[in-house]
């Protein structure tokens, strides 16, 4: 079987990274994929956006940003949780959730966590 080339990979993390240490698994996978040449995005959604707060981002999220992983946070979820744009950590950007649909429509693999 021919091996398909994976150009982009997105993981959606919905769980609070402080309360759920397992959330780090996704960034580990993304960093390895990035090192293999795949463009990678971590989309924080629901309680996952709690990790986007400046001063509250876990070390593995910072490491992911340093490794070149695009880290986005659902604007709707940020607003729900009262996290204003100026409180988002460096290296993380607010983005619409619908970006997930765009990636799916483009054929990109998207993993939901």
């Amino acid at each position, binding site marked *: 079987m021919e091996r398909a080339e994976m150009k982009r990979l997105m993981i959606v993390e919905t769980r609070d990274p402080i309360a759920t240490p397992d959330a780090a698994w996704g960034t580990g996978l993304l960093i390895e994929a990035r090192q293999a040449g795949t463009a990678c995005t971590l989309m924080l959604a629901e309680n996952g956006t709690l990790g986007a707060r400046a001063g509250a981002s876990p070390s593995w999220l910072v490491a992911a940003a340093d490794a070149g992983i695009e880290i986005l946070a659902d604007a709707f979820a940020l607003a729900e949780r009262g996290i204003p744009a100026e409180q988002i950590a460096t290296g993380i950007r607010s983005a619409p*959730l619908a970006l997930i*649909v765009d990636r*799916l429509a483009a054929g990109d693999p998207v993993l939901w966590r």
Partner: protein
Amino acid sequence: MTRTRLTFLLMDAPFESSRTATAMRLIDAALDRGIDVNIFAYEGAVGLPLAAQTAHANAVHGRDATEEDHPLPREWVAALRDKAVERGLAFDWVNCGLCVEERGAAGSIEGTRRGTPADFWAMAAASTNTLVVATA
């Protein structure tokens, strides 16, 4: 031109998880983009389109059922179904039949149907892409 079609697999029961609302937002965004959608409701998610869901009053807040305006997932499903029809898009909602029987959850709203996990395989095979929104 080939139409884009996305398949979503949902697993969470109604009134339990914010994943349900998030998944509905994604399906809504797909319809906004003119994308045909399939939804396979697995395990507790077969309760999402249950026609018997009823809004209730909130005695603590002193509100009747109308004032409380309690959100019902079956209304969300119906709204997405109607939006797809209005836009001429496919909206194929399939409930896992075994999951329905396990839960005694027969009686879904119009525009949904019963199926098997094999339907999910067929949906995914015929789709541009598939997103599995698994339970946490």
